[in-house]
C-alpha cells in the first residue's frame, strides 16, 4: 500500500519502520527541517519537508497516488484539514486522523474521515482498567475500548459472595458470561450461587467496569 504519514517524533519513526517492514511504501511529511532531515537519514522512505496543510506539499508527497493518509499532528484542526484535503482534492480513499480532543470524534466521522484514532479516550480507558486489582484479568476491549470483557475473582468479603445471581444488585448493562469454578465453566443463571474463589467472566461498558469489580472483587 502507498501510505502517507504526517507528523513527527518517535511515534512517526517507529510507525514508519514497522509499516516499511511489512512491505508498505511510505512517504512522511514533516514541517520541521531538522526532523525531516533526520527521518530521511534513518528511514527508508521518501521524506517531504513542508506543511501538509499546504496543497502543494501534499502534491509533492504524491497524494494523488496514495491509498491511505494518516495525520498524527498534535492539532486537531490540522489533522482534520489534511485528511479532508487528501480525500477531496486528491481522491485518497482512506484517511485517518489523530483526535486529541475526544469531543471531535463524532464531528470527524460525520465529515467522512474514515479512520479516527481517539488517543485521549483510549489512554484514559487503559488507565482506568489497569487500576483494577490483581483479581481482575483477561481484559479484552472491543471497538477501541467501547466494550470490555474481563474476569474477576470473587472475594470472600464481597457483596456477591454466597448470593444467587438474581439477588445481586448489578446495573442492567453488565452481563455475566460464565462462572469458572475449579476449572469448570458454568453459564450463570438467576439461581446460580456465587462462591468465594469463583472467577466471573463479565462483559460491560468500560464506565461500569469499576462497579462490577466492586461487587465481586470486594474492594473499592
Amino acid at each position, binding site marked *: 500500500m502507498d501510505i502517507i504519514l504526517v507528523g513527527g517524533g518517535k511515534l512517526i519513526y517507529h510507525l514508519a519502520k514497522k509499516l516499511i517492514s511489512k512491505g508498505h511504501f511510505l512517504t512522511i511529511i514533516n514541517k520541521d527541517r531538522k526532523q525531516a532531515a533526520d527521518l530521511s537519514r534513518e528511514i527508508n522512505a521518501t521524506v517531504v519537508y513542508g506543511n501538509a496543510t499546504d496543497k502543494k506539499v501534499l502534491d509533492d508527497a504524491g497524494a494523488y497516488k496514495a491509498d491511505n493518509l494518516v495525520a498524527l499532528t498534535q492539532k486537531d484542526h490540522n489533522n*482534520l484539514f489534511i485528511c479532508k484535503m487528501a480525500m477531496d482534492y486528491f481522491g485518497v480513499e482512506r484517511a485517518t486522523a489523530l483526535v486529541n480532543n475526544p469531543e471531535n470524534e463524532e464531528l470527524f466521522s460525520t465529515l467522512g474521515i474514515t479512520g479516527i484514532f481517539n488517543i485521549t479516550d483510549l489512554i484514559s480507558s487503559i488507565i482506568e482498567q489497569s487500576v483494577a486489582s490483581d483479581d481482575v484479568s483477561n481484559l479484552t476491549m472491543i471497538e477501541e475500548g467501547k466494550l470490555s470483557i474481563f474476569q474477576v475473582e470473587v472475594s470472600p468479603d464481597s457483596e456477591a459472595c454466597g448470593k444467587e445471581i438474581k439477588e445481586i444488585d448489578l446495573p442492567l448493562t453488565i452481563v455475566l458470561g460464565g462462572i469458572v469454578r475449579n476449572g469448570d465453566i458454568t453459564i450463570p443463571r438467576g439461581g446460580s450461587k456465587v462462591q468465594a474463589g469463583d472467577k466471573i467472566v463479565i462483559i460491560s461498558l468500560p464506565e461500569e467496569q469499576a462497579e462490577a469489580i466492586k461487587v465481586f472483587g470486594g474492594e473499592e
Partner: protein
Amino acid sequence: MFIVIVGCGRTGSLLAGSLSRSGHEIVVIEHNPESFALLPVDFSGFQIEGDAAENDILKEGKIESADLVIISTGNDQINYLVSQMAKLNFDVPRIMVRTIDPAVEKMYENDERVEIFSQISLLAENMINKIEREGMR
C-alpha cells in the same frame, strides 16, 4: 441579529465594531486577550477569552442561538474546524468564513449554510474590475 464572531484580529474587531454600532448583538471569541484592545471604545457586545475550537467555549458564547456566525481567525485550518463545529454541533443557520489561501476555497464546495470570503480573491477581483472599467474609457 445575534452574531457570534470568532477571532478578534484586525478583521474580526473591525466587523465587531461596525456591526455593534449598527445595533446588532455581538459576542466576540478570541484566545489572545490582548487582541480585545483592537475593539473600538463604543463596542457594546460581549468578549469571551478562549479557544473557539472547544465546544464549551462556543457554548459560553451562546452559539446555539446565533443567527449568524462569522469566523475570521488568521488560520485556515482553525476556520474550517470551527465552521464545521458551528454547523454540525450547534446547527447555526448561517456561517460566514474568511479564507486566506485561495487553495482552500474548494474545501467548502457544496457546504450548505457556509459562505466563504476569500481575502485574496476578493482583492484581486476588485483590482481587476477597476482596471478593466478604466481600460474601457
